[in-house]
């Protein structure tokens, strides 16, 4: 409904309120993120909005970052993970509160990697063409999105979409579509590592995967009828509450209702 993926809500709710160990919650969330990404990507792929070649270039960086993050999950103390998740949620709130002006796409110029692409945008009633800029810097910065994804079991789209739009001048719809496709591939390596490290628990992962899939179906229909700015404000409040709960728990301060 809001394009954040289920992980940003699932991990803190499972961990802080349902008593699920945070590493188990991260692993379940990672798998749910793959399923959610595949479900959403089918629509974008069908409408040819995903820039496949750009996705491949960035995926090398995001996947390496994600594997690095997933390796840390197995060894990092739970309190550190809780604090890291809380800080990531605060950063997301800041990103959501910024009113970003969408960067204008660059349509001409050198394109050594052949990343030029176009898609039909019904909102403008025509085809939008673009040539991604600063690909090297974009790829390096994508490692951060991948690392967050592997470490925290979240999609990373909240970092990847602004990065592609503002830095690489990819139109926001193409950036969202390409990021959605990338998330699924990015998390595969982490998910297999979670499994190898015994962090994948069916009792948590099976309901999480089914729940995220059903929730995404309901959310994508509901999202069209809810006013965007109000929805964003409510979500920011919820994220703030979850982030603060996790941070207090990481600091050893008891929170009413939390475990």
């Amino acid at each position, binding site marked *: 409904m809001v394009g954040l993926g289920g992980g940003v809500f699932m991990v803190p709710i499972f961990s802080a309120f349902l008593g699920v160990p945070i590493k188990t919650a991260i692993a379940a969330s990672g*798998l749910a993120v*793959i*399923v959610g*990404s*595949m*479900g959403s*990507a*089918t*629509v974008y*792929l*069908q409408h*040819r909005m*995903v820039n*496949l*070649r750009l996705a*491949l*270039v960035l*995926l*090398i960086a995001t*996947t*390496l970052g994600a*594997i690095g993050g997933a*390796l840390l999950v197995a060894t990092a103390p739970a309190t550190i993970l809780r604090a890291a998740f809380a800080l990531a949620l605060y950063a997301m709130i800041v990103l959501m509160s910024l009113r970003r002006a969408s960067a204008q796409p660059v349509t001409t110029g050198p394109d050594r*990697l*052949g990343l030029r*692409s*176009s898609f039909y945008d019904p909102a403008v009633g025509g085809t939008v063409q673009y040539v991604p800029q600063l690909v090297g810097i974009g790829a390096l910065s994508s490692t951060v999105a991948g690392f967050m994804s592997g470490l925290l079991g979240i999609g990373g789209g909240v970092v990847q979409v602004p990065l592609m739009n503002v830095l690489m001048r990819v139109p926001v719809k193409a950036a969202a579509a390409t990021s959605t496709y990338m998330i*699924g*591939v990015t998390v*595969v*390596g982490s*998910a*297999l*590592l979670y*499994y*190898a*490290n*015994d962090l*994948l*628990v*069916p*009792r948590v*992962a*099976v*309901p999480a*995967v*089914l729940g995220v*899939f059903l929730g995404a179906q309901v959310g994508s229909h509901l999202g069209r009828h809810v006013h965007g700015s109000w929805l964003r404000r409510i979500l920011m409040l919820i994220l703030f509450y979850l982030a603060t709960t996790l941070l207090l728990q990481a600091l050893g301060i008891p929170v009413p209702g939390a475990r």
Partner: protein
Amino acid sequence: MPRTESTVTPAEQIDCGEAHLGQLSQLLARLYRLWLGLALALLTLGLVLDLFEDSKLEQATVPLTDLPTALMDGQPVALETAALLFAALGPVVGLLVMFSACARHGDRRTTALVGVVLLVVAALPIARLVGGR
């Protein structure tokens, strides 16, 4: 047998055109839809069988080395583990399809890119899966 003339120009042999990448996108969309349907059906079946067996879900997945035997024994947790792995591998199958399509089309650049991504995705987790469990 008469040889047919190739309609692909040298420039197209080096790179997939946007039209080909568009077709590839639609192929991936169909593959993802089918893969998700199968994964969720398997997962639901495992969940139902597990709940019928002892009214609760398992605490641990089945290690990869024991998975074939556990599946043959009809253990619900094995079905759940297989379904979770099946779902996780969906994007990798998408990459393999892309690799094969671009290689057949002679697009060396995209084929090489997919190859590197596949290598990065697979290398470490497979080493851990084989060595660690």
